[in-house]
């Protein structure tokens, strides 16, 4: 049964791919007005593409099949983006074609690489490490001071509702235009989530395990190192993951407030003002890829460190 389904699905995919290739050949020259023929063909292909995604989604399946559906959907979106831009002759200012963005990524890779170094390797990485490290250190330091915990925790929770990135102009004033000011904003943004997660994580070890440590005559430090910190790992990693995204946002937005002539946020804001949207999209692709990659790396690391956690063992 599932074999026949898979074959049917393959047929749909082949037909859709063939149609896509045909439409591609039929597209008008750049600048020329498209006739009704390609438009109708495009609409027909849209239906076909929808059907193919539906077929792949209907396969009952393992994990990679679910991912295949998403990948196919993404592929179709990029394809129709490209075809739509060419068919309707959409001005570049509104929406550059993916091919244009791709060629811009290749052409200006040196610019984007410099931006990447400035924003990600300097501001984000240093700020993220410092902010998360400080949050963790303070969390552990006040572990034995419940009074401070009760005082800091509500305030730390409150900061998640406050637009902290707005300190960027002050950071620029204090630390200058270069990456130091962006790193300062990132430190501020990442500190509190880590503090909250550390405090919550240190409470995560069960009473039974603590009493076991006590019966081993383990002191505070021993219990902390061997029981409570390992038990806190899932909390710490979820904060690290949240902070990775927050750090990217903080650094990019802080660059909107003033920066040297390099950096992803600077590139996005100045090239958008100059209507060079292809390069803006290029910078966004770099930022998005960085974010996903950082997240994936943290997930991998978490699997190695917190392999014992039920949510990981379940897979």
């Amino acid at each position, binding site marked *: 049964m599932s074999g026949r389904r898979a074959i049917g699905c393959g047929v749909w995919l082949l037909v859709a791919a063939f149609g896509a290739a045909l439409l591609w050949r039929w597209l008008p020259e750049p600048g020329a007005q498209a006739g009704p023929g390609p438009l109708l063909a495009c609409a027909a292909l849209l239906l076909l593409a929808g059907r193919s*995604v*539906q077929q*792949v*989604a*209907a396969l009952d399946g393992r994990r990679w099949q*679910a*991912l295949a*559906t*998403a990948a*196919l*959907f*993404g592929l179709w979106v990029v394809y129709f983006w490209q075809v739509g831009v060419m068919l309707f002759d959409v001005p570049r*200012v509104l*929406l550059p074609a993916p091919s244009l963005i791709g060629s811009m990524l290749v052409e200006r890779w040196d610019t984007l690489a410099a931006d990447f170094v400035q924003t990600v390797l300097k501001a984000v990485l240093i700020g993220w490490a410092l902010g998360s490290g400080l949050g963790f250190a303070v969390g552990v330091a006040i572990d034995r001071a419940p*009074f*401070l*915990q*009760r*005082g*800091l925790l*509500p*305030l730390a929770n*409150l900061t*998640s*509702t*406050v*637009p902290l*990135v*707005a*300190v*960027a*102009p*002050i950071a620029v*004033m*204090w630390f200058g235009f270069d990456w130091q000011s962006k790193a300062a904003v990132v430190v501020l943004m990442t500190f509190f989530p880590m503090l909250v997660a550390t405090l919550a994580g240190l409470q995560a070890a069960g009473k039974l395990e603590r009493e076991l440590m006590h019966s081993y005559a383990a002191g505070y430090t021993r219990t902390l190192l061997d029981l409570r910190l390992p038990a806190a790992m899932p909390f710490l990693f979820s904060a690290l*993951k949240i902070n990775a*995204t927050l750090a*990217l*946002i903080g650094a*990019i*937005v802080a660059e*909107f*407030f*003033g920066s040297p002539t390099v950096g992803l946020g600077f590139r*996005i*804001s100045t090239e*958008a*003002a100059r*209507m060079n*949207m292809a390069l*803006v*999209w290029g*910078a*966004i692709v770099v*930022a*998005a890829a960085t*974010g*996903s990659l*950082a*997240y994936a790396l943290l997930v991998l690391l978490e699997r190695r460190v917190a392999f014992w956690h039920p949510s990981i063992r379940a897979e």
Partner: protein
Amino acid sequence: MTGTVAMKPDRLSQRLLPVASVLLAVLLLWYFAAVGLNAAGAVERVLAPNGAYTTGELIASTLNMQRPVLPSPHQVVADLYRSLVDWPLDSPRNLLYHAGVTAQSTLVGFVLGTLLGIVLAAAIVHSRTLDRALLPWIVASQTVPVLAIAPIVLVILGSLGFEGVAPKATIAMYLCFFPVTVAMVQGLRAPQRIETELMHTYAASRLQTFWLLRLPSALPFLFPSLRVGIAAGVVGAMVAELPTGAQAGLGARLLTGSYYGNTVGIWSALVMSALLGAGLTAAVAGVERLVLRRGSAG
């Protein structure tokens, strides 16, 4: 129930005292930092030359400078108070006016983003195709700095002729929309199999199941995401005010403050935006308490 009521004053003092003392410590630190950071400027510009001043004069002048590196808390409070009291509500010198402008675009975007997120989540829950094709992308977008797209949205909407609230609300909308969608998908799937089967034995239609079972069970998931969403929406609306050369709004206020080196102005705008963010989140939390209480009572 009576037990919790009786415990309340005790718990209040237990919670309030630590917070108050931490706040006090922050305030003291702020004053010390203001003295330290402003001392060089005060010695150079304000005080008598050749060291002809006392320590008291030095401290007093560092705390009341025109353009301090770090304004002292009472300067910020005074600036806020003056802007709220001395000027009418519709004057651009009143910070409440700017907060109102930002709040307006935040709220419009928040409502639209929430509606969009709920509708999309309902569609995803009912369609296997959407679930498999779209949901992974929405989840993945949580790891991506979506705020970076703000300038593009502004340019596109600007060249299509949209101005004023619409572009800012759009950015606030898409920042709200992602967390709401992810949480609602989780929430709408929260009912157990036994519950959906019970609805089935009642011959409930899909719509009835959605309305009577799935939506109520999704509410506890929805509200935390709404709190995340509205806080993100405030950031989005403020960032959207930066590149447009907007005249009004807290983001524009921050930018003009940093252009003219008006540090006290920046800090009071910062305090105002913190109040706005915390206030809007508190409002959502209030609605949450109201709705969930009514839900559990009925």
